[in-house]
C-alpha cells in the first residue's frame, strides 16, 4: 500500500466542504505576517509528531509562515521527562531532586540552541516548556500546548511545572477535565483525526478482504473489534468477557489488535494474559501488529460490525473517532475523552462494565438499522468536531485570540 502523501488543503474540500476551506483561508490571511513556531521534543514517534507532520504542511499550504523545531536532550533527560509524563498522568513514579536538576540543565542548554524566532511560539508538552524563560518582548506570544491527561497529576511534578506554565500567555488542554488552576487563560482544543491518513482514508477495493484473509477472519460472520495497545487500562480482558457473553446468544468473532513496544514489559505481560484468556478459541484473533500498520488497522475497523473501546481510563481515545469516521457503531467505556466523542445512544453507546458492553453489542448485532443510525451519526459528529481541518482552524483562531484574550466576542472584518 502506498503511504499517504502529504495532502494539500484542497484535498480536504470534498470531505468538509468549500465553506470550511474558505474559512481556513480567511483565518490564514488574518494571521499573515506572523510566524507560528512549533516546538516539541521529537520529529518522529508519538502523537504530537504525528499531528504536526500532517498539520504543518497544511498550514504552509494556507500561506501561514510556520516552522517546527525540536529540543535536544540526552538519555538521562528523556528518562526524566518520561517519568514526569507518567507522573502527570497520575501514575506512581519516583521523583527526585536530581530529576528536576537534569530537566533544568537541559532546558538551559536548549535556550542557546533553539532559535526562538516565532511571533507565536507553540510549545508542546512538558519537555520544552522551560524555553519560555527566553521569551522576548515586543509582542511575541507564547502558548503551552499540553497533550497529556493531567486530570490527576502528581503534585510534585505539577507544582514544579506550574510557575513555568504561568509565564505563558495561554495554555491549551485537550479536555475540560484537564483544566488546572492557572493564572493564564486556558483553552480547549480537542485532538483530531486526519481523514486522508492511511489510518482513515478510503481503501482500495479488495483490501479489507485481503486483510481479513491474512488473519483468517471470516468476513461472512459478525466481527467485534477493539484496536488498542495491550494495556490494562484498555481492559482487553473485559472485552473478552463481553465477547463470551455475546457468544452465548449470537455468533460472532472477536479481534483484539494493537501494538506492544519491546521496551514495555507491562504491555507484553498484558498480551500474554490476553492470549491465555483467548485460549484456544479460534474466533478470538489476538493480533500483535508491528509499527506503521495503519492501513491494516484501517481495514480491520472497516470490516468490523461493532467496535469496542472499553477503556477503564483514557486520555482522549482517538480510536473512537477513527471508528466513527468509518461509520462503525462504537461501544466505549464511559471515561475520559470517549465521553466527548460518544453521545450515548446517538453516536454510540457508553458502558461501565463487560456486561454492559455485551448487552449493547447483542442489541447492535441484532439490529442493522441501529448500527447504520449510530454509524451515520458518529460520522457526522466526527466531521463536525474531530477532523484535522477543525484542529487547524482552532490553532489559527488561537493566534488571533492571543491579541484578544479578555474579549468574549471578536469581530473579524
Amino acid at each position, binding site marked *: 500500500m502506498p503511504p499517504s502523501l502529504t495532502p494539500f488543503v484542497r484535498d480536504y474540500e470534498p470531505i468538509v466542504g468549500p465553506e470550511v476551506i474558505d*474559512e481556513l483561508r480567511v483565518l490564514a490571511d488574518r494571521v499573515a505576517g506572523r510566524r507560528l513556531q512549533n516546538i516539541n521534543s521529537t520529529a518522529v514517534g508519538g502523537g504530537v509528531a504525528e499531528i504536526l507532520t500532517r498539520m504543518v504542511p497544511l498550514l504552509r499550504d494556507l500561506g501561514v509562515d510556520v516552522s517546527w523545531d525540536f529540543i535536544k536532550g540526552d538519555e538521562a533527560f528523556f528518562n526524566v521527562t518520561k517519568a514526569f509524563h507518567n507522573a502527570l498522568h497520575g501514575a506512581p513514579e519516583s521523583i527526585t531532586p536530581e530529576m528536576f536538576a537534569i530537566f533544568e540543565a537541559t532546558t538551559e542548554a536548549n535556550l542557546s540552541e533553539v532559535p526562538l524566532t516565532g511571533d507565536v511560539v507553540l510549545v508542546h508538552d512538558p519537555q520544552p516548556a522551560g524555553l519560555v524563560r527566553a521569551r522576548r518582548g515586543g509582542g511575541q506570544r507564547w502558548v503551552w500546548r499540553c497533550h497529556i491527561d493531567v486530570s490527576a497529576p502528581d503534585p510534585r511534578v505539577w507544582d514544579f511545572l506550574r510557575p513555568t506554565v504561568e509565564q505563558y500567555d495561554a495554555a491549551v*488542554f485537550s479536555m*475540560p477535565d*484537564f483544566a488546572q488552576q492557572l493564572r493564564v487563560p486556558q483553552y*480547549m482544543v480537542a485532538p483530531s483525526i486526519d481523514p486522508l491518513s492511511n489510518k482513515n482514508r478510503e481503501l482500495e477495493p479488495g483490501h479489507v478482504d485481503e486483510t481479513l484473509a491474512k488473519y483468517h477472519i471470516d468476513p461472512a460472520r459478525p466481527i467485534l473489534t477493539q484496536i488498542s495497545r495491550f494495556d490494562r487500562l484498555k481492559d482487553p480482558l473485559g472485552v473478552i468477557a463481553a465477547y463470551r457473553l455475546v457468544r452465548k446468544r449470537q455468533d460472532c468473532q472477536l479481534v483484539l489488535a494493537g501494538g506492544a513496544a519491546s521496551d514495555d514489559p507491562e504491555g507484553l505481560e498484558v498480551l500474554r494474559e490476553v492470549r491465555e484468556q483467548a485460549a484456544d478459541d479460534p474466533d478470538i484473533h489476538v493480533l500483535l501488529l508491528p509499527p506503521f500498520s495503519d492501513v491494516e488497522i484501517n481495514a480491520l475497523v472497516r470490516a468490523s460490525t461493532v467496535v469496542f473501546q472499553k477503556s477503564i481510563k483514557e486520555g482522549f481515545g482517538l480510536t473512537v473517532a477513527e471508528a466513527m469516521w468509518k461509520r462503525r457503531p462504537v461501544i466505549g467505556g464511559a471515561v475520559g475523552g470517549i465521553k466527548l466523542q460518544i*453521545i450515548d445512544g*446517538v453516536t454510540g453507546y457508553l458502558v461501565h462494565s463487560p456486561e454492559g458492553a455485551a448487552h449493547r453489542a447483542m442489541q447492535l448485532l441484532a439490529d442493522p438499522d441501529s448500527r447504520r443510525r449510530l454509524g451515520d451519526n458518529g460520522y457526522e459528529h466526527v466531521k463536525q468536531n474531530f477532523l484535522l481541518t477543525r484542529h487547524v482552524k482552532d490553532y489559527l*483562531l488561537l493566534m488571533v485570540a492571543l491579541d484578544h484574550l479578555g474579549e468574549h466576542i471578536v469581530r*473579524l472584518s
Partner: protein
Amino acid sequence: MPCPDPFHFYTERRLVRLTGRRARTLGELQRHLREVSGASVFYHTHHAFLSHHFQRPVFDNDFASWTKEALQETALPEQLAAVDLLSFTAIRPIREALIAVIERHLAAGASADRPCPPGDEFHFCESQSFVMPTGLVAATTRDFFRTMARVSNVSLFFHFFEARLRLGRTTNDFSAWLAACGDTQRARAVDRLDPYLVSLDELRQQIIEIGDTQNAA
C-alpha cells in the same frame, strides 16, 4: 417594498475556554452558576445545538444532562431542560432561571452535598466567539430564500440563536430583516419557528419552505 439594506450573512467560529471551575455537587453547581461569566452560561445552554447539529436535542443544556447522568437526579434535569431559552433576550435571566430551578429543588429537600462519582465532575467552559462575514449577501427577499440553502449551520446558529441575545429582543436576524423589507408575513412565519426543538438541518429546511410557500402563492 425594497429592502433598506442587503442582508449580510455572518458566521461565527468559537474557541472554548476552560475556566478551571468544576462542580461535584448540586451546591457547587449552584454556587459556580452565580459566579461564572455570561459566556459560560451561554456555552453550556447552547453549544450542543451546534456540535450535535444532526440530531434533535434531547436535554438541551449541559446542566440538565449533568444532573441526570452524574447526579442521577430525576425531576431536576427535566426542570432545567424546561427553562424556556426562546423566551429570553439576555443571559442574566437565563442564569437566574437556572439558579431558581436548583434553589427550588434544594428547598424541597434535595441534598446540596451529594457528590457525583469521581471523574464525572461538571467542568465550566465558556465561548470566545469570532464573528466573520461569509461573503453571502442577499439584496432582496427572493435572494434571501435562494441563498438559505447555501447558509452553513454555523451561520444559521449565529443569526437565529445568538441574535435574540444580541438584539435584546425576542426575534432573530432573519425575521428582523424580512420585516424591514416589508415582508411581514414571512417575517412572522420565520419568527414562529422554534430552533430549540429541531436540528439545524431541519431549521434550515423549514426556512426554505417558508420561502417556497410564498413563491408558490
